[in-house]
């Protein structure tokens, strides 16, 4: 069972989330504002907090920082009605582990909660939630789904390229087989297969200016798979 604390000022959203998440073996406690959230967190242990950005008494960002300071092991999923990238950036920089725009797909929330739990159990808390990765002069912004070249040119990525590059930069220097990459880049409603993996890799090489004949960054390991060969920094 996953213990989840929902902080939202809307009573019906709290109640319906409680009802809905129970079906996916998530027990829900609910708080209507920041004060109640602090009170509950002082007496109970939670695996994940689902926090609304706009609360009547306190800003969700301040609460997010408070959780980071006092309960650093509890991951936070930020919910917000401001769908723009700026508040998304703010939310993640203030220490939220994930972000979901209202109105969200209920299934998506369940998927995020489970993913965060899995990562926490595997101790991957850090790498997965990092917003930006740097390698060889390139910057990979996972929030805006784009690459910034060493010459400061923005190179937008497709969803498939984004998922593929995420999988690669999180595991630099490791050979990843096609089967592993299919598993890592799976997304709902999309068919990923050997052919699409190869296509996405070649697109990424093109965008990264990596020669297809002698690739340096994304190397082909014959018969084994692909290897991301670069020093990755945050």
């Amino acid at each position: 069972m996953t213990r989840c604390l929902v902080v939202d000022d809307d009573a019906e959203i709290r109640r319906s989330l409680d009802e809905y998440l129970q079906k996916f073996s998530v027990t829900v406690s609910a708080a209507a504002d920041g004060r109640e959230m602090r009170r509950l967190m002082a007496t109970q242990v939670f695996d994940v907090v689902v926090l609304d950005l706009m609360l009547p008494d306190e800003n969700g960002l301040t609460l997010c920082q408070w959780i980071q300071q006092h309960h650093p092991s509890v991951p936070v999923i930020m919910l917000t009605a401001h769908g723009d990238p700026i508040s998304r950036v703010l939310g993640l920089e203030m220490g939220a582990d994930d972000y979901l725009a209202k109105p969200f797909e209920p299934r998506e929330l369940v998927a995020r909660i489970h993913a965060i739990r899995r990562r926490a159990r595997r101790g991957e808390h850090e790498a997965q939630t990092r917003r930006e990765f740097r390698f060889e002069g390139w910057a990979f912004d996972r929030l805006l789904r784009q690459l910034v070249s060493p010459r400061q040119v923005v190179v937008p990525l497709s969803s498939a390229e984004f998922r593929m590059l995420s999988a690669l930069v999180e595991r630099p220097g490791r050979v990843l087989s096609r089967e592993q990459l299919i598993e890592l880049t799976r997304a709902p409603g999309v068919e990923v297969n050997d052919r699409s993996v190869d296509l996405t890799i070649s697109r990424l090489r093109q965008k990264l200016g990596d020669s297809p004949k002698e690739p340096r960054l994304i190397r082909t390991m014959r018969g084994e798979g692909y290897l991301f060969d670069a020093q990755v920094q945050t």
Partner: protein
Amino acid sequence: MKRLAVAVRGGFARAFGDTLARRIFLLLWVTLVAAQALAIGAVTWSRGDPYALRMHGAPSLPPLPGLVRGPRGPGPGPGPGQDAGPGPASERQGPGPGPQGLGVDADLRDVPLPGDVPMPPREGFRGPGPSQGQASPPPWRGPFRALTGWELTLDYGIRLLVTGLAAWIASRWLSRPMRDLVRASRALGESLHKQERLPLLDEQRGTLEVRESAQVFNAMARQLRRQFNERGLMVAAISHDLRTPLTRLRMRLETLDIDELQRQRSVEDIREMNALVDAVMELFRGDGPGAAEALVDVDVGALAQALTDDLVEQSMPVRFEGGDAPVLAKGQPMALRRVLGNLIGNAIRYGDSAEVRVGRDAQGVWLRVTDPGPGIPADKLEAVFDPFYRLEDSRNRHTGGAGLGLYIARELTLRQRGSLVLSNRPEGGLMAELRLTPATPA
């Protein structure tokens, strides 16, 4: 009574205060007097002849040609003075116009009048050459002495210089308030969008008219800022408040016991409403408090490729035709995604499939989205950019949308200093062309 007093005071200030009229008057007057005085002063000084200064400005008129000719007597042709060998006048005048030329008044002053008592021949004229004569100190020749070529040049030069300089300074000086106003007006739109400091004018400096315009302009700018902020905040608030009920609705659909098809349709409606809220938020993001997206170098080829790939992944009929070389333009990546996404969406919705091309020419970078659909009547090609405008045949369709898509797309494009136009292709179907400024070469 009071109003009259105010009017009188206003009229007084206009007549005697620091008005534009007074500035122009002063400027012209000072310039002309200064040019006159300087030219005369310089010429006199170069002659070292204090008397000439006194006489130069004297009210006596130079003798008119008619008067000169008068006492010459009835005989036509050259006067007696000229008969006796080479006339002294022609010798002295050199290659200039002869005594009969009468072109320049100044020349006449030196011409010996035929009826006069013949002047005793001077030393210089008897000498072997005219150079000797010029070397001798000029004798007194009455108040109207000709200016030599050099003095004339000096005189005209100084006048031209002084009036030219004054005109240049004055034009800068008098037009400065206008230029300030133009600059401020130009900066106003930008600063309203970017929430920067307003480009206010100095209300304390300049003429009465300038100070008045500055006050009016500043009041207008502040009013605009207030309305912009209010509009942005209001739209943000409405959008935000719409999302909470949409979230409730979405959650309710999960727990309600309804037909699956109905549920899916409702989910689709919620998604559409949210997309509209998204679009409006994006449009007003720059207006309300909160930073607008920065203008950066974007590989628009990669952008078009990425958007197309995403749609192809969802089995949408989109094709991207482009080279491998990056096509760089100045733009806002997120806004560009929305604009291009909207154009491709329209092409699929109304033309059943979309083809995206990217390239550059002498005018800049272009992105073209074409479809094989029915196109748009030529007289409606611009109207479709108006907010809430919808073509007749799209109104009945479920997929018609709110009619904000193209309006928002063009707004976002203009903000990136680009342009967006629609045209019907000769081979059929619609073409949307998005043009952007090329990126600065590295």
